[in-house]
């Protein structure tokens, strides 16, 4: 129950893209068509679901005071987290290439982009500040990724349609995308009042 709770919360109520506005660079750059957007969204679910639990293990067994080295090494967090993310992305890229060439050709170009997607590092840093345990951090990663996927597919669908509208020239492209994202963020703010504990009948 607790885990469903965290999944719903991280996917909808605390949506990484539309409540915290993380990963905006790729959110705006790759949301021109639904197909590419869903490719990037899937890759984000994948990478968030892997890196957050790994970073949890690193934080608890290497960097914390009762970890392997027996001293407080938390100042190394940023460096280790980003190294884990960069190497995991590289690894995931190689594994996907071997196992499923079809998926690789769909995700291939987006995987390197993900290293510098703030949603990934942001997810790991939120995981620290929320003080989750291991299974919670796994669910938090998957939920956060799913929420980000939903958001980018939604905005891509809207942007595909808006191409046929008569937008003022200086607002075209980027400007109107910002306004749409703002409205979507306002819509997601309406979800903030929902208590997921009541939803799963606790």
């Amino acid at each position: 129950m607790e885990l469903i709770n965290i999944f719903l919360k991280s996917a909808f109520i605390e949506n990484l893209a539309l409540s915290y506005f993380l990963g905006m660079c790729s959110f705006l750059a790759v949301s021109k068509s639904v197909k590419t957007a869903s490719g990037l969204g899937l890759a984000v679910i994948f990478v968030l679901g892997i890196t957050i639990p790994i970073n949890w293990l690193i934080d608890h067994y290497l960097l914390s005071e009762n970890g392997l080295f027996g001293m407080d090494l938390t100042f190394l967090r940023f460096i280790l987290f980003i190294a884990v993310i960069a190497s995991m992305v590289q690894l995931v890229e190689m594994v996907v290439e071997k196992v499923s060439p079809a998926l690789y050709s769909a995700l291939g170009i987006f995987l390197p982009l993900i290293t510098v997607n703030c949603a990934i590092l942001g997810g790991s840093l939120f995981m620290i500040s929320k003080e989750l345990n291991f299974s919670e951090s796994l669910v938090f990663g998957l939920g956060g990724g799913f929420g980000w996927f939903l958001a980018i597919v939604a905005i891509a669908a809207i942007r595909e349609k808006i191409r046929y509208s008569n937008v003022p020239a200086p607002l075209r492209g980027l400007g109107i995308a910002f306004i749409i994202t703002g409205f979507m963020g306002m819509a997601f703010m309406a979800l903030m009042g929902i208590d997921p504990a009541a939803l799963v009948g606790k």
Partner: protein
Amino acid sequence: MADSKTNAKLDLKPVFFGKKEKKLLLDPLNDNNPITVQVLGICSALAVTTLTTKALTMAVAVTLVVGFSNLITSLLRKLIPSEVRMIAQLIIIATLVTVVSLTLQAVNYPMYKELSVFIGLIITNCIVMGRLEAFAMANDPWRSFLDGIGNGLGYGVILLIIAALRELLGKGAIFGFKLFGPGPDFLVDTQAISMLHWYTPNNLMVLFPSAMFVLAVIIWLHRTWNSKLVDVS
């Protein structure tokens, strides 16, 4: 990028601060602004702009990180093999961000708490990575440093404009000084209102979506004024 490379080869005499250096510093403020034109570093631009003081801290932090990571990467550019350059760049950035973060913790702890994860997220701020890839890997250290500082300033200017608008309209204050709206004890003493009491601060401006709208309006004005930036696609 191609022409700046050939330029660097053309003047053999090193100029300390010539025309090109000035252009490197000032171009990102308008024609090549990292936020409104290159669309980089949006995440932090939206999240930290509820207060001008927060935006100012963030702008200084980002300017320092971009400037020095450009400088260091440019010094090491011939030693970094191109297969692992991404990880090498990220390590350089992460180290600098750790330094900035620890310094901020020591100097102003409440501000550090308020910025929460966003100081750490400078690592994935696309401006830093983008400048390293596009400029520092191909240019000499001094120019790379100037380019970094210029981009940091371009980012900071937009950040401060957004933050000033949001704080002014959302809280009726700027840098924490109350300008608009009822004073803090207006319920007790109706005379104790600030000078411009006809405006009631609108809380929506402090919330996240308003940052999107403010940024869209800034882009709109910027592109109306500088029409060569209009998106034709």
